């Protein structure tokens, strides 16, 4: 039975990338619709009236919003292939905790590096602290999910394509400070689901320069 699946997204959005990776991991076919964030489609406004944001997954006409909620939905519906969350409740809680940490800390620091004038150095320092904590959590495992790629890997890896932007804006090297984390990211990039979903870091940097110019930072 053909499932009607549509993803409303923006190619450079790391939150959209999370969903694309999850869909690819499960081998799910879907229709991709690129949104112009400066001129949002009536479909997007209809499907996500509360936040008016991408990504939105529309499954048989019903919308699911917010990247973590979408990824968990995908994991629960297509549960037989490549599970992303562990089945053990405690390990599941740990995975949710670290994914939440990525959103609360990494996303926040990252944004401050390129979006707020004058905060780059401090935000870069905080970002490194967060990434070091994540390195600690990763330990010697190949992935945050253990032997297999999991929920926290999906949560964090989209930001690998933003490292170039962060490093250029704040003049520092993430690889020098967090070599284990960069090694993990490169390992993830060996997976097709990841390398096919992550945008070109230079495209992201060009986009960031445009936004900075528009809002008057540069």
């Amino acid at each position, binding site marked *: 039975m053909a499932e009607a699946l549509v993803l409303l997204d923006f190619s450079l959005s790391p939150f959209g990338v999370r969903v694309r990776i999850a869909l690819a991991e499960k081998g799910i076919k879907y229709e991709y619709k690129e949104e112009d964030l400066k001129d949002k489609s009536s479909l997007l406004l209809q499907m996500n009236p509360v936040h008016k944001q991408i990504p939105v997954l529309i499954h048989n006409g*019903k919308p699911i*919003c*917010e990247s973590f909620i979408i990824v968990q939905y995908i994991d629960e519906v297509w549960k037989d292939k490549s599970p992303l969350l562990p089945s053990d409740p405690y390990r599941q809680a740990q995975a949710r*905790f670290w994914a*939440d940490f990525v959103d609360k800390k990494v996303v926040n620091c990252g944004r401050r590096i390129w979006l707020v004038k004058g905060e780059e150095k401090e935000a870069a320092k905080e970002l490194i602290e967060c990434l070091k904590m994540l390195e600690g959590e990763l330990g010697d495992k190949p992935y945050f999910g253990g032997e297999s790629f999991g929920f926290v890997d999906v949560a964090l890896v989209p930001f690998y394509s933003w490292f170039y932007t962060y490093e250029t804006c704040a003049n520092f090297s993430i690889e020098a400070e967090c070599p284990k984390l960069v090694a993990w990211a490169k390992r993830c990039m060996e997976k097709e689901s990841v390398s096919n979903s992550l945008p070109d870091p230079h495209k992201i940097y060009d986009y960031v320069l445009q936004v900075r110019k528009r809002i008057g930072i540069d």
Partner: protein
Amino acid sequence: MFCKCSSSPRLCLGSAMATSDVKLLGAWASPYVMRPRIALNIKSVSYEFLEETVGSKSQLLLQSNPVHKKMPVLIHAGKPICESLIIMQYIDEVWTNGPSILPSDPYDRAIARFWAAYIDDKWFPSVSGITRAQGEEAKAVATAVAIEQVSAGLVVLEEAFEKCSKGKGYFGGEQIGYVDIVLGSFLGWTRMTEKMNGVKLIDEAKTPGLVGWAERFCANNAVKEVMPETEKLEEIAKMIQAKFRAPPPK
């Protein structure tokens, strides 16, 4: 059966299960701490409530939640679980013979998670906005703007209630569920904000469904013993406001 916890740590009795297996670090006034307490009550799970002292963080808290150093922390068989929403989902997945907190259908679960995130990330910060406005220069304007934001959010939640409850008493349907607990845990602070600012936020005219829901929620057996009294919250709010108004130390 459910503990009437004051400011000292109490053993919650009423079940034959080992109480030492489940501990909860928290404080009676925190809405986030209330959530796992309601969830454990729904599942009839006894737990030891370890009350944190106001103004300081215990060694156990710092050890159990080294990343955020915040409560609540659930400690189950020695293992810590942090973040109220994550704790609730954990409780739901471990104690499967009690009533469910999250729906079983994946789509309904996604909707429940969506509203929980909306309440935590958008709506409740707007309620705190009213209290924050009191410390501002143009207090009257700031307060009016803050109130408008909260009201607009409540209209959205009223609609969500209509859709999720499907004519029953709670967001979770016949019984209280995930969204009920997330929103309901903020009722104490919302009422306190109403009282201190002389404003009605959840009112009959705009949000009649939520008015009925709030009464039902507070009267629920899993909730009533852990809902803080509005007067006690007012005292805490006044302390916090005084701290904001105090001149910065030199």
